[in-house]
Structures are given as structure tokens and as C-alpha cells.
């Protein structure tokens, strides 16, 4: 085989690089980001599980309901009512975007553009 050695060496390096993240990552355990929960409030508008898994779906529905359908009152699964507003309802409890929203978003590598328009409770600088 012509060039046998360089081909094999190249393959080894390539596969080594391919596996490097896995090799380097073994032994380390994933640590969930520690978000700061609102001090005064115990309950969110829906259950913790629901909010964890579906807040993005809910916010997406909220914006259409409020803006396009003109329906601005949300009744949750327990029958409690809330005004539909990211800025005026969510962020009234979650008063620190950096300590709450950003923590998970940065960890998950997503950057939603909500705050290009909605103002965060700590104000804009």
C-alpha cells in the first residue's frame, strides 16, 4: 500500500480528535446551574416541571394570545388568573435576569432575543 503509514497515522489522529471530547469528559459530572429563585414567591404561574419543560412554549403562546387575539388574562391549571406579560408578570417575581434566565440559557447555549425589546427588571445600561 502506497502511503500506508501517513494514511494510518492520519486516521489515528482523526479518530483521536473525534473522540477527544468524550475522553476528556469522562469522570466529570454535569452540574446544573444554580438559579436564584424569587425570595417572596413560592409558586410560579404553573408547576415547576411545567415551567422547566414548557416555559418557552407558554411564552410563545402568550405572545400570540395577548398581541394577536387580544386575550391578556391567563388562567392556570389550578384556576388562578394572571396578566399575560413577560415584562410585567414574569419579571416582577424574577427580578434578576442575570441570576435566573441567563444562568440556564448560557448553560444550554441558547440566546433568546426576548430582551432585545422587553426590558429586564434591573433596567438597561
Amino acid at each position, binding site marked *: 500500500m502506497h502511503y500506508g503509514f501517513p494514511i494510518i497515522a492520519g486516521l489515528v489522529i482523526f479518530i483521536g480528535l473525534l473522540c477527544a471530547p468524550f475522553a476528556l469528559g469522562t469522570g466529570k459530572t454535569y452540574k446544573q446551574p444554580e438559579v436564584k429563585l424569587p425570595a417572596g414567591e413560592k409558586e410560579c404561574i404553573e408547576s415547576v416541571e411545567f415551567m422547566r419543560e414548557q416555559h418557552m412554549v407558554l411564552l410563545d*403562546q402568550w405572545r400570540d394570545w395577548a398581541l394577536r*387575539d*387580544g386575550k391578556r388574562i391567563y388562567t392556570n391549571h389550578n384556576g388562578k388568573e394572571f396578566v399575560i406579560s413577560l415584562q*410585567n408578570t414574569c419579571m416582577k417575581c424574577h427580578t434578576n435576569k442575570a441570576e435566573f434566565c441567563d444562568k440556564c440559557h448560557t448553560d444550554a447555549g441558547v440566546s433568546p432575543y426576548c430582551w432585545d*425589546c422587553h426590558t429586564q427588571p434591573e*433596567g438597561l445600561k
Partner: protein
Amino acid sequence: MKNNRRAFIKLAAVAAAGLAVAPKAMASSGGHSPVKANPKGLHAKQWAMVIDSTKLHSEEEIAKLADSCHKIHNVPELTGKKEVKWLWSDIYPHTFPEQENPHLAEEVHHRHYPLLCNHCEHPSCVRVCPTKATFKRPDGIVAMDYHRCIGCRYCMAACPYGSRSFNWGEPRKNLDLANLNPKFPTRMRGVVEKCNFCVERLAVGDMPACVEASEGAIVFGDLYDPESPVRKVLRERFTLRRKPAAGTEPCVYYVI
């Protein structure tokens, strides 16, 4: 054989019942349609505005209205071609170019007229928007969904009144960040914006900000309710609308 067929049909029935239930069960989180309008909100078939230009016509008076509007909606302050405006003023020939005559009363000719989006009954801006980011609500308000605007500016080309502004740059750079209205969002670069007839205020039972600031010179109400304050003025006074030939049926009327 007989038994088998019976079992099969039973199973099929169960499966069909399952199919009928499944979509509801799956949609139970989103499908629980738990929303309603704010009971305090104001409703109409077609919101409209009548501006008494005999009471409200100096540049300063109109600038005051624009100020209150722009403050509560976090409209950036810019001049020149990149200007963003929801409410502004202009003189008669620019306001009513089709209704000019060479011997018009001088005072009427030189008056300033408050201008804003007319929330037209047949809005050309809505017809041309490719993403439905601008749309007509059931109460007649022509609204903007900034989440969906792609900044193509077809609506600006289609509006015969110049009622729309485009955010060429980052609007927050031209806002006083210390004095924002924290209840209303700002916008982002690359979207079109305009007057929204204060939908967010109507939703909680308040009148539009400019109507409140006008101290009676602007009335606001339902165009299709003969008892509304708007219809009352229209019955009693002579009014003009801007560029009637454009066929958009503007809902802002001017007492001359």
C-alpha cells in the same frame, strides 16, 4: 374465525376511541385554552378618532401630545431620515393634499394638524405585509407584531400617509435608558413601528394617551355605535379625512 373477527372489531373500536381522545390528551398542556380578555377592557367594532383642529393646532400643543405618546411607548428620539414617529404634525397642504384650493382661509392653511396612523378600515399596509406582522384586529386597530416583522418595509411603501417608521439602528441607543417606561417594551433594529391606538391602554380600560393629553380636543370611540362620542361629533361638525382617494377609509377625522 368468527371469534377472531369479533375480537378484531372490538380492538378496532378501542383503537378508534383512543384516536379520538389522543389529540386532546396530547394537547392538554397547550390545548387547555385558558385565556380571556381583560374584563376591564374597552371594546368597539371599529375604533376611531376625531381631532378638533380648531382647538388643537399649534406645533407646541401637538408636540406635547407626541411627547406623552413617545414617552409611554419608548419611541426613540431621532431626527432626519432615520426619524421614528408615532404622532407628529404638519401643515394643511401636506395633510390634505387632495383637498387644497388656492384661496383657502389662511389660518386653516397654516394651521398644524396632528398626524398618526389612521387605523384604516381597508389598510393597504396589511394587504402587502408578507408575514402578517401587521394585521387588523377585530376592533379595527391595525396592530404590529414586532416578533414577526422582517423589516421588508412593504407596509411603509403601501401606507399613503407615511405613518410608519423603520428602525434603521438600535433604537435603544436613542432612548433615555434611565427614564424608560418599564411597562412597555422597546423595539429592536430592523422592524417597522407606528401608533397602535394604545391597544395596551384600551385593554385595561384606559383611553389613548394622546386623547387624555388633548384635554377634550380629541374624541375617541366606536365608529359603528351611533351613540359613541365620535359619531356625535361627526353628526354635528364638518370633518375631513386624509387622502380619501387612496380608498383606505381612514378612521381619523379632522374637524376643520
